[in-house]
């Protein structure tokens, strides 16, 4: 992993005005949930824990989750493990990846 440590808080400007209502961290990956039920993820992605299908080790900027993996449903809640992630969707299904 590329070392990009910062010791002072930095704004993630690409998430500005996206109506983010909650945030979740795994060991090396992060999710932001917006008020419309879609999510953005970034960070460590070697085990596909960010939910993006392309094979990248790290994702450096937040990327929106493809609604196809959710079957068109909204995300109600997210839980991040060390290297996996769970979505609770609006139709009460649990989606796991990573």
């Amino acid at each position, binding site marked *: 992993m590329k070392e990009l440590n910062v010791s*002072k*808080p930095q704004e*993630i400007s690409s998430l*500005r005005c996206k109506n983010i209502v909650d945030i979740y*961290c795994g*060991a*090396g990956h992060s999710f932001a949930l917006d008020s419309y039920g879609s999510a953005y993820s970034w960070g460590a992605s070697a085990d596909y824990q960010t939910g993006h299908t392309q094979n990248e080790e790290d994702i450096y900027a937040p990327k929106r989750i493809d609604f196809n993996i959710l079957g068109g449903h909204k995300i109600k809640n997210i839980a991040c493990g060390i290297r996996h992630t769970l979505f609770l969707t609006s139709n009460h299904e649990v989606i796991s990846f990573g």
Partner: protein
Amino acid sequence: MSMKNVDYASTKHSTQDNRPLTDIQGGRKLESLNCRPFGSQNQERHYNNKKINKLFRKTACGRTSHNRTQGESTEGSSGWLYSWGVSKDGVLGHDIPEEDEEDFRVKEDGALVCKTPKLIDYFVGLSIKITKMSSGAGHIVALANNLKIYSWG
């Protein structure tokens, strides 16, 4: 885990402290067993077992590769963010002193440890209150009342 909840009702408070809490820490006061690995019998690491005399609304714990913990918390009513624990990769979000300071201690392996919750003054300077935050192994993401997302670590 480095934190233990004590029953709010069974602890004594001054009147100004005695206000209701919200969220997952509701009705409870935080006691820090800072930097003590869970289940450890090694009392030398258990150097900061004292109650944190602030009422917190939300807490999050990270974890370093050495299995020590760091904590970050928002205070009950103000929304200011505090952090303490192992200072590694900038996870604590505040300036690290170059000289010896009372709040800090250097571990055997050279890592700097912040012993008591320290206000992250970056947000205070900008008058930004934190509404949500989450902590990874080496990074923290926080959602502020200005609806902006901040990350460090």
